[in-house]
């Protein structure tokens, strides 16, 4: 995940002692004491083939808290695009669903967008 190998993880607990172990921090800021740039986004696309009339694909996702999601459908063929929508769960997965709207040969991708505003 782009994080260096020097990672440690332990179980959840609480602060017990008051021993100073961190002299590296010059200052601390609580929420409201600093700003955050605009938003974060996730864009995902899945592929579907000509024989897919009703396709559901579940993909891993960022864990969303205040995010909203939207879906679209793109094709590279000449016939109808069809319908596409997605549903978002808070557990880190997003389901992309594509339904063919008409007969004919359709291939392309369905896309999912997740955006979190601050």
């Amino acid at each position, binding site marked *: 995940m782009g994080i260096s190998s020097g*990672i*440690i993880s332990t179980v959840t607990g*609480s602060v017990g002692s008051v021993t100073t172990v961190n002299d*590296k*921090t010059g200052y601390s*800021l609580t929420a409201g004491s600093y700003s955050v740039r605009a938003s974060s986004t996730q864009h995902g696309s899945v*592929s579907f083939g000509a024989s897919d009339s009703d396709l559901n694909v579940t*993909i891993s996702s960022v864990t969303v*808290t205040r995010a909203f999601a939207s879906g679209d459908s793109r094709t590279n063929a000449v016939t109808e695009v069809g319908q596409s929508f997605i549903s978002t769960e808070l557990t880190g997965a997003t389901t992309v669903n594509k339904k063919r709207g008409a007969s004919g040969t359709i*291939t392309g991708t369905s896309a999912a967008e997740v955006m979190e505003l601050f």
Partner: protein
Amino acid sequence: MALVHLVWFRRTTGQWIGEWKGLVPEPDIDPTIIGDERLRLMNAWQQRIQSTLGPRCLPGEQEWNLDEWDACPSGGAVCLDVTRFGWPIGDHAWHRWDDPHRMLDWGDEHTFIEIRTDTMEIVANQRSHRPIRDAVPGQHVVDITHTQWARFYGRIFGRFIWREGEQRWSFMPSGTEGCCAPKELAEAPIDLGLGVEKESVYHGEFVQRARH
């Protein structure tokens, strides 16, 4: 006790140092104090709390870049309360701290592909400012940022085949002309972060199943 999620960054480079989430004593601040003075007292309270926190020292959900921690001089870090985001531990690793403007900023998006580990087919191309972790059983997310794969984002669909003689994965693009990744990716190196544990036959070709 209050649940807090704290993140440390280098002040000079903006680089993420680590994160800690856990229970701490509630701040004891006169509720009649408001505005800038309250913020000052809250920041001072947090500075006291965080002075007890660091790698290897206390229970709590945490992740650290120990190289950055060791390289950071005294006073060289800033500690932010990021509880309001509600993100998992480690998700701030790609954030950048802008010290002069006191602003938390985003780094470049990362690019990912997601594969089914039984057929080794690519099921999704993704981009995100935040880490995308494996969340679907039987699927695995691979970060391809800064590799030659990344520039073909949105067109990387197909499947991987294990080349036993060369001990590497090769890529077989799928899709119609113009919408799939170019054939040059077939020989492009990639680290899928997967082992190989058993042989199988898929679509008439020799492949090996990935160990996930």
